[in-house]
């Protein structure tokens, strides 16, 4: 599962996008795993995520947030929080470290910035998954500005046609970029789609092609 990987765009835009994923390995069998995840969700929610997801329930724009915070399986849970600045991520990591839950934590984002945060917090990067981008018939891909939005759902559930439809609605004054971003976020079941970044990218598309 590489669903938080392979986002694209200019570095300034990527620097406003961090996904914190917390996962319980099936090899470990944590006691009271559900309780541990309730604590994780408290931490993720406390630091104002722009999206929140739980693989059992869904994302916060499609499902009830209370259910996302509370409902877990016995084993093998996965949850995500999405943030737009480094300070938020640092606070999340600080709290997760202090909570000593023993669960695996992965931060996806500009990795040099992530490494800097870890150093400041006295943590060490254990393993990385680097992105070497897209190979093969790239001419079959949607335009780059659409991909910047759709790649924020690594399962590719966010439809390029919906992006273009919503851009047209924004141009006609029928929809705000913020509401359009929320509509797109509903398609990303896991809740890893950065709604705020999508809003900025939609504004950019609306401005660029009248």
């Amino acid at each position, binding site marked *: *599962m*590489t*669903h938080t*990987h*392979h*986002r*694209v765009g200019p570095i300034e835009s*990527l620097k406003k996008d961090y996904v914190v994923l917390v*996962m319980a*390995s*099936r*090899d*470990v069998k944590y006691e009271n795993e559900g309780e541990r995840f309730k604590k994780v969700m408290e931490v993720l929610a406390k630091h104002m995520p722009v999206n929140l997801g739980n693989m059992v329930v*869904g994302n916060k724009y*499609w499902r009830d947030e209370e259910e996302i915070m509370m409902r877990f399986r016995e*084993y*093998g849970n*996965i949850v995500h929080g999405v943030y737009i600045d480094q300070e938020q991520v640092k606070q999340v*990591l600080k709290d997760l*470290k202090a909570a000593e839950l*023993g*669960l*695996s*934590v*992965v*931060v*996806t*984002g*500009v*990795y040099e910035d*992530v*490494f800097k945060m*870890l150093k400041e917090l006295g*943590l*060490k*990067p*254990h*393993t*990385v*998954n*680097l992105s*070497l*981008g*897209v*190979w*093969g*018939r*790239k001419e*079959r*891909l949607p335009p780059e500005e659409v*991909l910047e939005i759709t*790649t924020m759902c690594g*399962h*590719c559930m966010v*439809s*390029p*046609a919906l992006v*273009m439809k919503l851009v047209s609605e924004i141009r006609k004054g029928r929809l705000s970029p913020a509401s359009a971003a929320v509509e797109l976020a509903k*398609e990303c*079941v896991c809740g890893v789609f950065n709604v705020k970044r999508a809003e900025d990218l939609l504004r950019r598309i609306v401005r660029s092609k009248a």
Partner: protein
Amino acid sequence: MVLIDQGRCIGCGICIPYCPRNAIKLDPNLKKAYIVAEECVECGTCARVVMCPRDAIVGVVEGYVREVRAHFSDPYTLHPSTGIPGRGTEEMKTNDVTGRFKRGEVGFAIDIGRPLVGVTFAEISRFIKVLNTVGVMWEKANPILYLLKGGLEMGEFPEELNNVKLHSAVLEFKVPIAKVRDVIEKLKYLAETTDTVFSLGIISRVDDDFTIPVIEVLRELGLEVSPWAKTNVGLGRPLVE
């Protein structure tokens, strides 16, 4: 499969742009929406998200082929072989407690068909056969490998799956760092000869001084590494050092 109930549909077209595979069409004569079965990968997005005014989108997955599609395309479905949702495994996300990738080893996650182009089982089979010539250590828990008939060496899927399209499929394996060049050579060949795309992820342990040993090899090969990456921050316990 996901269906549009023709008796209920009023042809408003709201659902059409929501499909990431452009599989929903409008019949101009009947003024009803319908789903093109060969293009639909059973991702379930339309049934989940569209506010259909007539509740005409019905999510029913029936039959072996449609079930296979749903397991690989709908992140909300728990995969029977891994027990986790999605197309892949725990990969490096839990490497701090599983030690799947050791120092001196490099992991590859090749997401074929991603983003948005899709891939057939026949093409996945071709990738497996080409990569087999390098002698990679396949991730045995990867759900796609469970569908092979005749073992990994053969790299063949059941005949009935060959033309079936998935939204994407991840192949996962590892090699010693000395073999990275050989794998990249094969991937360059696959990139030149495929009719689809693939997104490439490369997994490595990080040294204590925060350096990533594989980056030097990739740079020597003239490859561009994105600033975007996934970092396991080592909070899992018991920790594999």
